[in-house]
């Protein structure tokens, strides 16, 4: 028997091995009562830093494509890019969640270990090549997410969010598998690229594509929070512990997109997705943009608002599946980097507001800017960037996606872009509503019990700075890099 493939696979998946080993080590170490929480936290951070460092080395040197573990995962720049991104997201989340979770009576170690596990699942989501791996890792991320949403198990909201999440999640992943079984029936393979190659030689009725696509999209759309499967989103975002919400709004969502890209690339190929598939995507993304933005207008709760904003952003991101060229994939990668920066930043501000000032909705934040101007300025930077206004990074990310979509100009893409621009204008209202409440209104006085922790302030400032800096300095290299990483 030839076992070289295992050796090669293990050599190229050192970050994953580090994360697995680290998770087990953190769980083991937590048995010893005399070890402080800070120590465990530092261990987890060290694991992520180590994994990130190895990935960084790999990503610089590696070009080309390898298939590891008998076709289970693809090892290429695309998967390395997402590996890096997810490790970064997990690291930032872990960093700013520490001030919140260190005071929990229970669930500290669970949070750390589940976050690490979830990161592992996301990494594998972005590199899976078979239906089996896709479903497995989707479930991996989902199951860890369910638990993380319910970590505050004596809090009614938290546990309720967890239940709603698992009901939607379990149902939609089952539906997805049902669709995949039809593709398997036609092609006799579970490898997406083999499936695609076989499908191209067959002359199947369009109705088959339509039905199968709708079924499969259920699972992906639920993870990406696009419209027909977005119902869990506001409730889970509101109920889950805020650091966890921050993580949900970036990590698993982007992982869903990464998996979707590989799936579409495998089954339909670049630039040639069938008309039905385009039609489905134009419907769901337009609906996402409309529903996300319009519902967000009526929201008062900050986390709910961010949930709807996230749905709208998923709609913008899903636009790229209309054309699905190398450019549009690159622009999606760029979008996901910028989106993570802005969203994580915005959630840090929400955490500070919640933890130190006890503010969780727009009304009660009236006049807050005079108490903590630094935070208010950071928040407005993130908000403006989320709208996509010029001096901030969000502008470019949106612009690039729109540009890459509009290239083969036809009435479909034109319609989609039109809706996207209009809803972007609409979104200005609710983002500005927050900023307006903080700066323009008079409000009560906000008392603070302790100084805002540096571990919250510093990442917030850095992310805000990054949002501005990417616009001002030469951002081309980042986009070029993203493009080189696209499939």
């Amino acid at each position, binding site marked *: 028997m030839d076992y070289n493939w*295992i050796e090669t696979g293990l050599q190229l998946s050192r970050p994953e091995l580090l994360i697995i080993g680290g998770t087990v080590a953190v769980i083991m170490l937590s048995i010893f009562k005399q070890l402080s929480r800070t120590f465990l936290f530092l261990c987890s951070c060290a694991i992520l830093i180590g994994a990130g460092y190895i990935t960084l080395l790999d990503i610089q040197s590696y070009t080309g494509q390898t298939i590891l*573990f008998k076709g*289970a*995962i693809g090892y290429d720049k695309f998967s390395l890019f997402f590996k890096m991104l997810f490790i970064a997201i997990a690291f930032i989340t872990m960093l700013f969640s520490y001030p919140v979770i260190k005071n929990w009576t229970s669930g500290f170690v*669970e949070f750390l270990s*589940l976050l690490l596990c979830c990161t592992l699942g996301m990494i594998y989501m972005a590199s899976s090549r078979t239906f089996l791996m896709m479903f497995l890792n989707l479930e*991996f991320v989902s199951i860890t997410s369910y638990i993380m949403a319910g970590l505050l198990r004596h809090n009614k909201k938290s546990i309720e969010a967890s239940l709603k999440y698992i009901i939607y999640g379990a149902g939609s992943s089952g539906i997805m598998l049902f669709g995949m079984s039809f593709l398997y029936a036609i092609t*006799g393979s579970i490898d997406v690229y083999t499936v695609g190659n076989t499908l191209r030689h067959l002359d199947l009725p369009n109705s088959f594509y339509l039905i199968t696509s709708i079924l499969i999209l259920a699972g992906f759309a639920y993870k990406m929070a696009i419209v027909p499967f977005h119902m869990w989103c506001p409730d889970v975002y509101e109920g889950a512990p805020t650091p966890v919400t921050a993580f949900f709004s970036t990590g698993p969502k982007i992982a869903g997109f990464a998996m979707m890209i590989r799936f579409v690339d495998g089954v339909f190929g670049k630039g040639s997705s069938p008309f039905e598939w385009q039609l489905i995507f134009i419907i769901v993304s337009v609906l996402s943009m409309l529903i996300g933005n319009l519902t967000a207008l009526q929201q008062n709760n900050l986390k709910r608002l961010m949930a709807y904003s996230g749905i709208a952003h998923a709609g913008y991101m899903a636009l790229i599946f209309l054309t699905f060229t190398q450019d549009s994939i690159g622009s999606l990668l760029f979008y996901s980097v910028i989106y993570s920066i802005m969203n994580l930043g915005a959630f840090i501000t929400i955490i500070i507001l919640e933890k130190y000032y006890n503010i969780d909705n727009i009304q009660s934040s009236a006049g807050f800017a005079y108490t903590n101007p630094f935070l208010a300025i950071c928040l407005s930077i993130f908000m403006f960037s989320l709208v996509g206004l010029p001096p901030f990074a969000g502008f470019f990310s949106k612009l690039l996606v729109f540009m890459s979509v509009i290239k083969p100009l036809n009435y479909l893409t034109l319609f989609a872009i039109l809706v996207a621009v209009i809803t972007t204008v609409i979104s200005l209202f609710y983002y500005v509503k927050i900023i307006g409440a903080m700066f323009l209104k008079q409000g009560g006085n906000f008392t603070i019990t302790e100084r805002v922790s540096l571990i919250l302030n510093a990442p917030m400032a850095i992310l805000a700075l990054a949002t501005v800096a990417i616009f001002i300095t030469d951002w081309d290299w980042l986009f070029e890099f993203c493009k080189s990483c696209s499939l």
Partner: protein
Amino acid sequence: MSLNEILLNIIFYALALTGLFSSFMVATSTNMVRTAFSLLGVLFSFAGLYGLLRADFLFAAQILVYVGGILVLIIFAIMLTHKIANVNLSNESTSSSTVIAVVCILFAVLVFIALTLPEYIKINQRNKPLTEMIGNNLLSDSLLPFEILSVLLLACLIGAVYLARKEVKE
């Protein structure tokens, strides 16, 4: 058609009808416990179908994991989340004609697929038990999923224990 095939057909239809009826009961029964034990019928009949399809390992796994594991868990959950003095636990549902219509349309669409699909696939029944091949596959093609699954189960274990346990008094 030989006697052997007739026998297989009879078994198949008996199992299929049992599964159909039981799943109908799961969807509509108004008694919580009856619902759970209807699920038992579905699981057993499906296990039988797997056996008929020569997926013998799946047959055992279905009974072992689903019947011996999941269903017992479900029944425990029912018992732990109700006042169990009453045998006739009601199991309400909010059915509306819209839902029924949508599900019927879904069913029609799926039946359409089921009837057209076999035209596009080459049908050729394999009559070999697969247990050994499954074992080999778990160490070659499915090695990575298998290992990931173990990490997933670890995460599940941590999470489920954390969520379900009683608070430890210190």
